[in-house]
């Protein structure tokens, strides 16, 4: 029995790290949704593009510096973030500007088509071979009690916490954050109050791209191989965002962590002890999502909207 328990604990920690990645992707959804009411299905693809771009920069800088060291990773990260800013501005021009007044359905389809385009374009440019990303922390681990934590997981968790904190602070305390909140509540009224709505939208897309790229940079070394299937993790982050209630930052975190834990635990220890879980472990996330939505249609932290005619 203690075998089961320590296994569960071990996997829970690795699940929290995975959940933090989900939470970061979900944060990307949440940011865009909060300000523009657009659901961005391409967030997973933005993450994938970020991972690829970071890989490209790492290899370039390694060549320039003549070897791998901490500065290479830092420089690559900063360049990737710079890329994300550009990427966000471009996405704002392609998706957000022309479709500002379109119905929800067409915006969702537009982001889906963007996702398809990004995925196939990346596959065409990068070629069919999977890349092997390098982790800045190597394989080092920390032992605490009976369980082993990899430094990478720890770094992911810390990064996620810092980013979440930053965004929470940004949304609630700064002028721009409050402008974003106002824009999401009523964009016309916000414009009348003198808020530059277009700039707010652009900023939101830039932020979402930055979050996406950072989550891609963090996730890439956690997966052994880097290829375009990584973008499907974006689909998996959707249940996380919805579980917590779309448009709520704490909801995204809690939803992400819950799903991360459920997924790792059901893939690991539980499927050794209960054979039937093996059959469903890649859809268990969706089963949980549908079950939650049946009971609370607006997610765990979502606020039910009052319907007006």
């Amino acid at each position: 029995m203690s075998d089961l328990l320590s296994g569960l604990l071990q996997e829970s920690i690795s699940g929290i790290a995975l959940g933090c990645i989900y939470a970061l992707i979900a944060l990307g959804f949440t940011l865009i949704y909060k300000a523009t009411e657009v659901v961005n299905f391409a967030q997973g693809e933005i993450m994938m593009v970020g991972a690829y771009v970071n890989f490209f920069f790492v290899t370039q800088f390694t060549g320039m510096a003549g070897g791998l060291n901490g500065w290479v990773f830092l420089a690559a990260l900063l360049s990737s973030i710079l890329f994300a800013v550009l990427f966000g501005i471009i996405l704002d021009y392609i998706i957000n500007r022309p479709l500002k007044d379109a119905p929800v359905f067409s915006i969702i389809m537009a982001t889906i088509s963007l996702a398809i385009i990004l995925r196939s374009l990346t596959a065409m440019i990068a070629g069919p071979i999977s890349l092997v990303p390098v982790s800045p922390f190597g394989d080092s681990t920390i032992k605490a009690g009976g369980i082993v934590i990899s430094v990478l997981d720890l770094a992911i968790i810390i990064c996620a916490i810092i980013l979440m904190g930053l965004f929470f602070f940004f949304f609630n305390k700064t002028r721009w954050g409050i402008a974003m909140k106002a824009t999401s509540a009523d964009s016309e009224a916000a414009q009348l109050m003198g808020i530059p709505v277009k700039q707010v939208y652009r900023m939101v897309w830039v932020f979402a791209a930055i979050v996406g790229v950072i989550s891609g940079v963090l996730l890439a070394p956690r997966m052994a191989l880097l290829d375009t299937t990584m973008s499907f993790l974006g689909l998996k982050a959707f249940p996380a965002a919805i579980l917590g209630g779309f448009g709520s930052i704490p909801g995204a975190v809690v939803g992400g962590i819950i799903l991360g834990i459920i997924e790792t635990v059901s893939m690991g220890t539980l499927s050794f002890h209960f054979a039937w879980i093996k059959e469903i472990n890649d859809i268990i996330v969706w089963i949980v999502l549908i079950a939650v939505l049946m009971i609370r249609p607006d997610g765990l932290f979502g606020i039910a909207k009052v319907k007006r005619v």
Partner: protein
Amino acid sequence: MKGRYVDENLKWIPILIIAVYLFPFLLKSATFSYKYYLYILNMAGIYIILTVGLDLLSGFTGLMSLGHAAFLAIGAYTSAILVDQAGLPFELSLIITPIIVGLFGFVIGFPALRIEGMYLGLTTMGFGFIVKRLIIALREWTGGSGGLQVSKASLFGITIKNDWDNYFMIYTFVILAIIIARRIVKSKLGRAFMAIRDSEQAAQASGINLAKYKMLSFFISGLFAGFAGVLFAHTNHFISTDHFDILLSIYFIVMVLVGGMSSIYGAVLGTLFIVLMENMFIPLFKDGLSQYMHIEAGDFQPFIFGLIMLIFIIFQPLGLYGMWLKMRIYWKLFPFNPRKRFT
């Protein structure tokens, strides 16, 4: 019944139907590889039946479905199991399978009563994943991930031997499906659907039972998809879970969207456009482009589809059918057309 289609010119419909039946003969005399084209047209016909049903659900009732490939999968597997393993005749499977799939639609309709917009889209997407996994798990009947061989269909003693026979069977059903869908749209049921799409609250206030009509919409859409599934299984003779990817569900939505939401003819046009594009023009493009850069077939096709969809959503939200309507009005008013309205 009088006056149901007063605003439309019905004269050309019999001509079109005759043209559909004469087309294979034309094709046979025109090209040597007509069998390949017939197969593509058959697949297009199957998809038309499905997208017409999807249009009733998404275009007319406003309920989003990203899991229609799952309905197709359930239809295909149910029919394969019923005909090959339970020994039922094909005609009976044509009736029973759509009803079973429709009942699955009913089950998905339950969450639709509470879940809206993209939440519903994701629920149906999750349904798609779950169905795919369940098909693999039930490997005693479905053959798991290895796939399943399906026998040839035989309708009232006539065995459907090849794509030539199949064309006439499928397109008979396609014509029936279009007629039925148009009758639904013009009936009380269709008007209730459209009222729900335009405003749920207003519809409810006018005495439309939301629960009943939403479930009915899913049920009807499931019927169409189940029918398509039966034909799919017996046209391809081999089905596996790889056929029913999430990407296929998205393609179905693309077909409806490119053709024009909320019009039955639009769904037909969009499906034909996408299927012909996929099989005729994209290979041509690819051959041209691959001289300059290295391209994998599996990447290029989604790329073109995504591009087409994005262009249509941004520049032509009404789709092909909307384009056609605009063109018709333009020529009707020809010398006196205010230019700005038709850009």
